[in-house]
């Protein structure tokens, strides 16, 4: 039996991150901050893409890694964000920053519409429902006039902060860096909270979770919506950076790529997911030299990683 003192210390909240880890994280952050000053536009561009994937993978990780819901249509929420910004700025002259809350609300709404009736489905069935949803969103974007049809929207307004206009890759690099840090902070906070734990409970044993008083559908829905919101914000910034968006950016392959990032690094754990996301963005670039063989080499690399590290490169201790 434990004495009072140890009970108390065990009950105290653990810090958000461990100290030793914090040092490494700060070092990484310093490198990230300095990067555009040393790297050329191409490297910065790739790094920006990597940061975009960090945000998207962290968002999907909430759905897949925390709540255990296999989502094959995550790019749809990314599209919701991008198109909201695209349409509102180019058609209605909205300020970029005002489109973000609208996009978040739209993503929430989309999440509820598709999630509420289907989240009680078994995981494999949910997979096909989300896949279908992803395709539906893409086809709608392709066929409506307001979304610019198949060729998409061009001339999306670039955002301004305090009179400073984000124009160059470097600017967007920092914007995405801020967004990625924000996403990490949000994930860390939620992971250690009541709802975060509820997601894990539901993921590991739905029935037991219900049996101790967790509303499983509501918990899943909240995870789904939160993932949706994060993707939509990433979408807003993406639209602003690209200035041109088209349905081709939101395909099933895009959803798979994000999922790949989540699993490759180590699902359910933030450092792993960040690593996976970076890898997903970098691998094809590193292998550009392979030409026609690029998909093949990428695939072989991917297979090798999974075979040697089945739990991902930086797995969760929980296994």
């Amino acid at each position, binding site marked *: 039996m*434990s004495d009072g003192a140890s009970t108390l210390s065990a009950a105290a909240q653990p810090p958000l991150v461990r100290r030793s880890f914090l040092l490494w994280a700060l070092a990484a952050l310093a490198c990230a901050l300095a990067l555009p000053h040393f790297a050329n536009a191409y490297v910065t561009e790739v790094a920006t893409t990597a940061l975009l994937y960090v945000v998207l993978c962290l968002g999907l990780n909430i759905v897949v890694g925390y709540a255990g819901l296999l989502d094959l249509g995550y790019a749809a929420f990314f599209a919701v964000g991008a198109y909201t910004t695209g349409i509102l700025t180019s058609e209605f002259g909205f300020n970029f920053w005002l489109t973000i809350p609208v996009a978040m609300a739209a993503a929430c709404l989309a999440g509820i519409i598709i999630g509420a009736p289907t989240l009680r489905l078994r995981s494999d069935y949910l997979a096909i429902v989300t896949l279908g949803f992803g395709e539906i969103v893409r086809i709608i974007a392709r066929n409506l006039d307001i979304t610019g049809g198949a060729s998409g929207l061009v001339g999306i307004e670039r955002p301004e902060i305090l009179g400073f206009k984000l124009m160059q890759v470097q600017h967007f690099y920092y914007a995405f860096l801020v967004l990625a840090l924000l996403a990490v902070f949000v994930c860390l*906070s939620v992971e*250690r909270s009541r*709802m975060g734990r509820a997601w894990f409970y539901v993921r*590991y044993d739905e*029935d*037991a979770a*219900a049996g*101790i008083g967790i509303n499983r559908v509501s918990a899943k829905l909240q995870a789904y919506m939160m993932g949706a919101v994060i993707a939509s914000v990433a979408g807003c910034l993406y639209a602003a950076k690209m200035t041109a968006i088209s349905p081709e950016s939101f395909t099933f392959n895009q959803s798979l790529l994000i999922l790949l990032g989540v699993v490759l690094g180590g699902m359910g754990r933030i450092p792993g997911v960040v690593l996976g996301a970076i890898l997903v963005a970098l691998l094809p670039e590193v292998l550009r030299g392979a030409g026609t063989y690029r998909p093949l080499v990428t695939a072989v690399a991917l297979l090798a990683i999974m075979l040697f590290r089945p739990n991902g490169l930086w797995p969760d201790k*929980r296994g």
Partner: protein
Amino acid sequence: MTTMALLEVRDLRLSFGGLKVLQDISFSVEKGAINSLIGPNGAGKTSLFNCLTGFYKPKGGSIRLGGRPITGLPPHRITALGLARTFQNIRLFKEMSVLENAMSGQHCRSRHGIVSAILHLPSQRREEERIRAAGMRWLDFVGIAEHAHRLAGGLSYGDQRRLELARALASTPEIILLDEPAAGLNEREKLDLVHLIRRIRDETGVTVLLIEHDMGLVMQVSEKIVVFDYGQKIADGAPEAVRADPKVIEAYLGTED
């Protein structure tokens, strides 16, 4: 009866296809009691628990908890109303820590959501601390506080059973349903369990209804025993009376040899 019935089951019916699993079951559990449910394998005991906790939807009849009807409510609502359970085959969150398992019981007793967690509101921090403290308290109560930071799946069988209890207790129920808590325990562990069940009632005032095949344990702890056979209630009463009931001997206990 002078005391109020905490749990009241009236004419409960359940069937799967043609199989009548429960037929017009009625009984009640008094507040503060320790009652048992016994019967042959397949009599419908676990199914009854599943009806009480909302996992199965009964075909007919009613269930009241503290006078409030709970028939057909989803499991999480029922737990929130004060009815907790353990499972016949242990269902812990094996990949999570022992403490996190115990904390899960507090979910329905707390309210902060995603937004306040992101904002790190002071009230949310306080609630988190309360949840952890409650989890620790119940681990301590069942005697496994020293394992708080191990993974639940790594506990010995007996300790896993205790953890299930702690988790259910952490939801501060009015009544707790235990499905074969002694299965797989040896004599000494069973004796510990008897003490624990008594302490649950005596120290926290939680009412206990348990399913068990170990007659020694059942006779030791229960004040009242309900006996099922083929989905029907065949006896209901004090341990001695039930033990002597020829119908119960015939259907369940068998003749001593």
